[in-house]
């Protein structure tokens, strides 16, 4: 497959995502929740573009910092823990707050200045078109 960069794949990443999935499945909110220190990402792509999505509930767009350099995407942010009311007593606090960061390698270099990001219903979407210079080019073969 065209996006298979052998350096981008690591068995440890595979194991970590399996562990995350299992934890989320069995214990729900403990570990591997929607919100964690290293948020889980889904990466979608085809020959022309990559889309990265992440579940990051309860943020304001200004708390999020999305950076793209060549083929590296970094998503940083800070979730502030806030009380729902000033005079309330806390009985249970499962939702995590604090900073999070995640860097991933994209399958190809993208156009840095055409990257768009959207934050909707607590889900971040980053849309990145492929850099024109890295697109596969069909070579015409001339017959002599």
């Amino acid at each position: 497959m065209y996006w298979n960069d052998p350096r981008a794949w690591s068995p440890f990443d595979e194991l970590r995502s399996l562990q995350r999935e299992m934890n989320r499945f069995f214990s729900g909110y403990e570990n591997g929740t929607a919100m964690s220190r290293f948020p889980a990402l889904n990466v979608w792509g085809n020959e022309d573009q990559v889309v990265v999505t992440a579940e990051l509930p309860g943020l304001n767009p200004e708390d999020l910092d999305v950076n793209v350099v060549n083929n590296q995407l970094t998503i940083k942010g800070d979730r502030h823990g806030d009380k729902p009311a000033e005079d309330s007593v806390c009985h249970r606090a499962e939702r995590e707050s604090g900073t999070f960061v995640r860097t991933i390698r994209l399958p190809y270099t993208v156009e840095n200045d055409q990257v768009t990001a959207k934050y909707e219903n607590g889900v971040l979407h980053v849309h990145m078109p492929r850099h024109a210079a890295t697109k596969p080019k069909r070579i015409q073969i001339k017959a002599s």
Partner: protein
Amino acid sequence: MKDRKENAVQKVEQSEMTRTGKEYVPAADIHEKDDAILIRFDMPGVTREDVDIRLDNSELEVSAKQSEIKPEGMDLIMGEYETGVFRRKFTIPQLIDRENIKAHLRNGVLDLELPKAEQAKPRKIEITTGA
């Protein structure tokens, strides 16, 4: 024979229908005020129409279906999370004024406000001193 086969097919279809996706337990914070109980859930990818809140006697059930994201014409290169249904049940010990329950959804966070019924609110007891 044919009937039985049809029944069997129907049964299979029904059993597949019982679950629409994976179920997840949303993380929740529970706070209490003098006059209300406040519950906050993390529910990313959920829209207002997909949230279902039920209070049956003392059992509160919140469920919400996440909208699935699948960009058209693209393949999943790396999948670390899946979408499904958030579901969680609580038993509420106090009496709740069920007419005035408020729910607010913003940026994937659901805030529930369950006001306590009049008889469940704390009352300050006046102490009289014998003269």
